[in-house]
């Protein structure tokens, strides 16, 4: 086999299939809204549920649990077409996070109980990892779970506080890292991985409003929350194994290449409309240069991701190299957001509260300008969450370079 980065006719046919399916099935309503902020819970799940029926909601999973069996190139095409159509991707908390943990570490009963809801898009998951004192240093978490027996059944009584819990306000279930052995020798030991029904008494979800004005993240307070021991994944006190697995897993799409391509196209469109010295802004050589540099850097990221995917297909597990994809991917996303804001000029400043309740009556300036600033502000999170970019560089330094 010779190195060949072009698409085969089969792959092109697959692209056609994917493109038609999206065109024919993507809900019309979702096309009309600008940002996720304006969507209700049902709207956000609608596409996931359609994909679930098609069998395409969890492409990266093993086939036995509902995966598609696509090769890396097919997944790449899928991501690209999804981005091109600007679909709302299935929420990652089930599909990319807890799902793989469950099918890797869960018991047959747990798999049977939890996986179908993720595949079908009927269960909304959230992630209970970060705590006010445990961000980058996740292993220092304090939320504790004490084991008790009641009526012959084992439970954990969970107390503590989680934070930055994305979209917990809609969640049916959450996966939580909790401390089950406060006396463990190392902080990573003595942590367990629990699935918790978010309707359990004692759970309080409080919004955190972020810079763009969005309610996307939450504090989650756990006050004597009673969790059946059967909801623990893997061994007690070994939850760090699941946590590490989860962090390293599912790098497909982490770089956000396909969505960034769409973002750059959007910049070009905006900059062809906006005027600068009575010429289209895109004719400003320095603006054009920024676009070109983004395209160059994105191509470098894209082919690095493709190399990583090819390595995975060849049996190399997703390794710490993928930290590169996260760092460069988020840097590019942030630069795109910044450039959109630069492009829209004065109309980046008005604060548009959205069309919903409490929103402005109508928008100020061109449509494309309305969310430029909030998106940029909110986008700063991507280099902080999921292991800050500083943490990612530390991982590469240690795991790849052995420094």
């Amino acid at each position, binding site marked *: 086999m010779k190195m060949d980065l072009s698409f085969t006719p089969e792959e092109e046919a697959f692209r056609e299939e994917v493109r038609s399916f999206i065109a024919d099935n993507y809900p019309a309503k979702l096309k009309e809204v600008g940002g996720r902020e304006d969507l209700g819970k049902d709207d956000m799940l609608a596409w996931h549920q359609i994909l679930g029926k098609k069998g395409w909601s969890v492409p990266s999973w093993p086939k036995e649990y509902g995966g598609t069996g696509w090769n890396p190139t097919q997944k790449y095409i899928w991501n690209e077409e999804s981005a091109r159509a600007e679909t709302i991707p299935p929420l990652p908390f089930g599909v990319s996070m807890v799902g793989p943990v469950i099918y890797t570490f869960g018991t047959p009963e747990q798999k049977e109980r939890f996986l179908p809801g993720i595949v079908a898009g009927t269960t909304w998951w959230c992630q209970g990892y970060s705590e006010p004192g445990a961000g980058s240093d996740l292993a220092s978490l304090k939320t504790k779970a004490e084991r008790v027996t009641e009526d012959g059944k084992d439970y954990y009584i969970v107390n503590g506080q989680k934070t930055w819990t994305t979209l917990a306000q809609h969640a049916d279930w959450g996966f939580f890292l909790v401390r089950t052995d406060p006396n463990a020798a190392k902080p990573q030991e003595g942590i367990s991985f629990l699935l918790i029904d978010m309707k359990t008494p004692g759970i309080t979800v409080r919004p*955190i409003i972020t810079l763009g004005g969005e309610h996307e993240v939450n504090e989650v307070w756990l006050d004597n929350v009673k969790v059946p021991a059967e909801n623990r994944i893997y061994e007690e006190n070994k939850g760090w194994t699941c946590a590490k697995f989860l962090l390293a897993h599912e790098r497909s799409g982490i770089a956000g290449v396909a969505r960034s391509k769409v973002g750059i196209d959007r910049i070009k469109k905006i900059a062809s409309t906006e005027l600068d010295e009575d010429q289209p802004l895109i004719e400003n050589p320095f603006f054009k240069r920024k676009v070109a540099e983004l395209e160059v850097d994105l191509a470098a990221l894209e082919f690095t991701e493709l190399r990583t995917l090819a390595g995975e297909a060849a049996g190399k597990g997703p390794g710490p190299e993928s930290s590169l994809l996260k760092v460069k991917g988020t840097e590019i996303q942030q630069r795109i957001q910044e450039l959109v804001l630069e492009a829209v000029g004065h109309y980046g400043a008005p604060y548009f509260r959205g069309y919903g309740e409490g929103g402005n009556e109508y928008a100020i300036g061109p449509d494309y300008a309305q969310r430029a600033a909030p998106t940029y502000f909110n986008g700063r999170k991507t280099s902080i969450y999921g292991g800050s970019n500083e943490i990612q560089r530390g991982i590469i330094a240690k795991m790849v370079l052995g420094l």
Partner: protein
Amino acid sequence: MNFDFTETQTMVRDTLQRFLKDRYDFESRQKISRSEKGWSPEIWKAFAEELGILGASFSEDQGGLGGGQIENMIVMEEVGRSLVVEPYLSTVVIGGGFAREYDRTDIVEGIIGGEMRIAFAWAEPKGRFDPDHVEVTAKEKDGGFVLNGHKAVVRDAPSATHLVVTARTGGGTTDAEGVSLFLIPADSAGVQRRDYPLVDGGIASEVYFENAEVSHDALLGEAGKASATVRKVMDEAVVGLCAEAVGLMQQMNELTQSYTKERKQFGVPISKFQVLQHRMVDMFMEAEQALSMTYMAVNKLPDTASVAMAKAKIGKGITFVGQNAVQLHGGNGISDEYAIGHYFKRGTILEGQFGTTDHYLRRYERLTLG
């Protein structure tokens, strides 16, 4: 060569700092910014009456304290440091700037007394950063003028008693010749406003002129000859923004240094991590250089190349400082509850006000490199 402030200047700064510390902490600022008005008449009154700072930058002839742009710089630095939303820049630096240029003691008096607040309506939807791009028209009629057109994102218009408006009395859309300047009451007939908040905590309006008839007295200076004066006052405003940026950057640095000293991860304050230390050093160096550039620009006024240099350097610097201040605050950096994010937002918008970093670099290049 001398970098010292006069005693009066030091007094202005100290008094204002004390006042803002007492009456304008972050909580109070948020309350004001989120109030229905979006600004505080009480604070403005205190500026005028308790502190008397509204007159600091005017000559004694005009009823001021005998100062000038250095006084504006001093005040604007504190405006930045405390995220003040009241319209000092619009009213005193810009409105006062025009009053000075056209020798209008009556306007100066109104400003100093606090009863006159001014918004500067220059930008237009298609004009980006070119003040000569003026599509709003002013046609002579019955000895006065009739204005028609649309001004974009007029900062502080909702709180203004008066608008200073650029309108075209002749020439083509982007000609310098033909730009005229009018001072009109904000509630003039035919002036429609759509008010809204800004992402940085300020307020602004879209202003629509629909056959707005204004008297001939509304004209500032000579018809069609306002372009140079507009640019000159805009340069003064940009220096004001530079000073505001210095206050923002210094405060972001202080907040970040304190936060990282408090915040522990892996058993130590995160300020102990060398990568974060060097980042904070780079942030510090940007703030120091911003201060230097502001001093340079204010002293070299009306040298427009120096202003362009300063805005370019500071625009880049405040972006760097803001983004990293948020980054080093971690999740709390993007939380609405913490002050840092609001400094970042103000800094972000400031970078583009009157023109982005790129705009001012190009301006500098044209002025000096041909």
